[in-house]
């Protein structure tokens, strides 16, 4: 009995092990900001991938972060550092990359990174 269950447990662990990390690692949605709605806490992004352009509305929850990259002001450091900004700081036309989770039929932002301010 134990000899039969062993391989089964291995298969189950292998299967769940494959599923787990992939669910957490979702591809970013990148594109141009079309609209920002601070009241609804949403961000609308026009994104193109695989030849298809579509508009995606992303919901921001309390844990969601919005950052842009600025040059470090620390003496001796010239690289970029993240700077948190508010949703209403985002402007239509900016290019952003959003790491989001798929919740039901909505995309919920984990972090919004400003690629370019225009």
């Amino acid at each position, binding site marked *: *009995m134990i000899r*039969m*269950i062993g*391989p*089964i447990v*291995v*298969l*189950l662990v*292998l*299967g*769940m*092990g*494959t*599923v787990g990390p*992939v*669910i957490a690692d*979702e*591809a*970013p*949605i*990148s*594109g141009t900001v079309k609209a920002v709605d601070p009241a609804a806490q949403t961000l609308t992004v026009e*994104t*193109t*991938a*695989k*030849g*298809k352009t*579509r508009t*995606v509305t992303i919901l921001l929850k309390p844990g969601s972060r919005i950052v842009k*990259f600025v040059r470090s002001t620390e003496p001796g450091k*010239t*690289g*970029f550092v*993240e700077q948190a900004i508010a949703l209403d700081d985002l402007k239509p036309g900016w*290019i952003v*990359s959003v*790491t*989001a989770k*798929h919740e039901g039929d909505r*995309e919920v932002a984990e972090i919004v*990174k*400003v*690629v*370019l301010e*225009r």
Partner: protein
Amino acid sequence: MRKLYWWLSALGIAAVALGMWIADPPAIRANGEDKHEDDKGGHAHVPAPLEYADNHVPPSVWTDPAMIARGKEIFTVKCAVCHGDTGDGKGPAGAVLPLKPPDFRDKAGAAEMRDNYWYWRVSEGGQAEPFKSRGSAMPPWKDDLSREERWAVMAYQHTFSGHNGPHVPWEHPEMVMVGRDIYVMACVTCHGQDGKGDGTVGPTLSPGRAPQPRNFTSNLFKLRSTPTGQLPTTADLFRTISEGIRADGGPLTFGLRGYRIMPGFHQMPVEQRLELLEYVKSFNKGFWDRHEIKTIAIPTPPPMTPERVARGLQLYKDAECLACHGESGRGDGPSAPTLKDASELPIAATDLTLPNRFKNGMRPQDIYRTLVTGFSGTPMPSYADSLEPDQVWDLAYYVLSLSSDGRRALETAKR
């Protein structure tokens, strides 16, 4: 017990399958992307489109310290956030993009990237295909940066590759390799290995006479939209290789349709024709040395009228066209037997009664272009400075009226 074993086995296999499916599922995400499509960066092996093909960077720009310094200033502020301070394509904003910025330190990748392609990418960014469809987030800089500023950025980006010379095909032959392969298959027999018009077959097409295959290393190009003595645009060359060149030809041109002394390659895919032209241009550094390209605009053709043709007849006489082309336009004027081209080869005056053999095309606008640009290297002059545009149309329609089709068109216009 055995039944339970099979059920549990099936469940285990299903779990593995589910894991694999989630690892690479069909496109279900809002942006249609489930993993990064191209981790090697936004470089694609496509030629710059025709409207950017003449945007060659003067070779001195690549090594000009002032330009490089200016480029560094712009790059640091506008580009480094994606492309990285070291040009490795790993700037903090670039790292999160589905289509990664290229690594400019990649010597081989940089060497393949032609200057006009590079300029096109900086100018249009991800708005141009095929990059747009692939989700490129690269912004277009044509409205923010001047031409010289874009050159400066490119010169600075080029320094990341470690190459210290100018970024030109004679330093990086790999940037025109595709075109070279096409040239070897389609052009070398007439135009020769070095593009000097000395291929094995070419001279036999019209033995001892003009026209001979074009010598791409010289500045004498007949079919252009540019003023006399200047090199053609890439669009001019594109038209020539697409449509071929009509002429009376010689004994070996019977197999070429429509009295062509050069066949048309309109069936060759556009991208291949553009690649071929990049190789052809690489024979002549003049294409890189010209900063401004002036082309002659061709207005919309006016209608053919008897009055216009009558004025054209007078101009035909006044401009001494009949000295070469003859009174009836058959190419039998008194000077015709003495005509020679720049290589001292005898050259025939075109028989104007046979417009389907006109080298530069037979439409009114083609004849207009021939009259205002002339044929460099031949006795056919440019009338750009001596005739007003309306007079050029008069003369063009008179030339057309010399053929049977033109006479018919004129009769219709009279009614």
